[in-house]
């Protein structure tokens, strides 16, 4: 990637364009974070000024009087559990599809791929009735299963690609060494695709974390709400307290932004994995 760096006015034009785009991207986010420290009066009076002081009142309102911390916890539980089970089951399916020749193998992989094209939210009504029947309404477990099902196709797709690329000699070698199929998978093959699993995990964790459609319908008690869903009701409650609203948005965005900044390379690889692979 290290081609020669462009010199001269062309490089300057490129930089100007990119810097302008950077401002357009970052400025609204910075304004959102800054407004979280302001009072209503400041937001109306000096919307573009820096906050007068590092005033955490709005955040305290959120922390003490709303369920936002609770929502954060629920979202974390749902996201982590979904992604963990997703990776286990997704790896199993991808492993079977990519590492074995068997009759119907193409059917099985098409079966998983078909899920990529099915917009599950259109089946929300039957899904509700079914979850109800299974006792999974108002239960984080219900959400977790839906997210796993929704994310399985892309996970299988991504992991199959990586698993196919592994040399079959490794597996043959382990077979000659006497390892069972299970052991070959767990001890030899899967450790080799951990980077791919991280990518698939991130690819699906972001939309799961951000989803508000399914919780909107399947979660009813406030204690069970997830962050994105909780925000919508929080907005109803604080509709005219702009400082608190901005603080709430900032707080909701913060965890993902921090993880993103620390792990940006993996995030980018992960989020674009489905499209590039």
């Amino acid at each position: 990637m290290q081609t020669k760096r462009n010199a001269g006015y062309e490089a300057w034009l490129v930089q100007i364009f990119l810097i302008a785009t950077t401002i357009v991207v970052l400025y609204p986010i910075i304004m959102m974070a800054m407004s979280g420290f302001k009072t209503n009066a400041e937001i109306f009076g000096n919307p573009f000024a820096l906050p007068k002081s590092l005033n955490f009142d709005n955040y305290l309102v959120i922390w003490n009087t709303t369920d936002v911390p609770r929502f954060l916890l629920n979202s974390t539980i749902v996201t982590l559990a979904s992604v963990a089970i997703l990776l286990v089951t997704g790896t199993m399916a991808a492993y079977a599809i990519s590492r074995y020749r068997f009759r119907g193998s193409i059917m099985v992989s098409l079966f998983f791929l078909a899920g990529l094209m099915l917009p599950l939210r259109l089946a929300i009504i039957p899904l509700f009735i079914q979850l109800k029947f299974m006792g999974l309404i108002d239960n984080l477990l219900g959400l977790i299963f839906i997210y796993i099902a929704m994310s399985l196709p892309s996970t299988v797709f991504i992991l199959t690609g990586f698993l196919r690329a592994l040399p079959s000699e490794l597996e043959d070698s382990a077979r000659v060494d006497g390892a069972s199929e299970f052991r070959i998978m767990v001890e030899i093959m899967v450790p080799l695709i951990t980077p791919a699993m991280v990518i698939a995990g991130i690819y699906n964790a972001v939309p799961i974390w951000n989803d508000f459609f399914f919780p909107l319908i399947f979660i009813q008690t406030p204690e069970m709400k997830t962050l994105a869903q909780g925000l919508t009701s929080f907005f109803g409650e604080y509709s005219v307290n702009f400082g608190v609203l901005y603080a709430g948005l900032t707080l909701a965005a913060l965890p993902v932004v921090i993880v993103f900044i620390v792990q940006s390379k993996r995030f980018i690889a992960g989020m674009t994995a489905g499209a590039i692979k």
Partner: protein
Amino acid sequence: MSMTNADYEKAKRNRTLKLKLWLLFLILPPAAILIVFVFVPMGSAVWYSVFDWDGLVRKEFIGLANFQDILFNPLKNKVLFNAFMNNVKVFVSLMLVQNGIALVIALLLARNPKGYRFYQVVFFLPVILSTVIIGFQWKLFLNPVFGLVNKFLHNIGLHDWALPWLGLPETALNSMLLVNSWHWFGFPTLVFLAAIHRIPKDFIEAARLDGASEWRIAREIIWPLMAPAITIITVLTFIGSFNWFEIPYIMNGLEGSPAGSTDMLGLMFYRTAFGSVSAGGSNFGSGSALAVLMFIFIFVFSIIATKYLTSREVEMN
């Protein structure tokens, strides 16, 4: 010691059987989750759509009457057509604006400017943020009275430009599309960028040696060789456009306000299936029929588009 031929065959069959059981063990759990939580509900939606529903109660089988109602009842198909055309507009605009900007930026980043990594991270930042956050944030920004956008326009003297962005039929959808582009452009940018990086350096350098201009290189070498990325982004944008729900729902509500100018198939489905305060009661039959129509449309079109676009791709190996 003395095994018969049949014993050998049996031993072999046992090995095969063990392998089959192992495969079953691998495939069954994920397949079961997918069947229970995707295929069965999707199938049920189709099943529901051929029944008459009194609100929430299923009554008799009526075949395709629900479909007929949505497609040919003059009032409903007016709403449907309006929503559909809005979805089309969303698709076309996002292709041009969001993906267009992304392409330009990808081409610029491909020149490996200073700060390459930084720009990559920054442009991708909005992508990871929740649509709920982005929707609310921009709804606040675009507020005609308290919003920062209009304050900013006043500050720089563009008083006439300070419009009630989300309130005017002419600007509401466009504002949302810009917000959506702001949210998502980083995604196609990085997909395009990855595609450009995959083009062997020799191709571009050979063209440079042949004296081709940068514009010609972009148009005649990079563009055709990026075709696979264009395909995938087009199909993803298509699916996203026709499922568009979050941004209009959060920013202007369920009715596609003002005056239906931001109505989308997704909103219409939601209203039809569940009802709303103003729009009245729910109808699972019509809702499911609409869902099935949308599903068929999206599915068939994605496949056709993939086929068509893929056939234009250049083999590069």
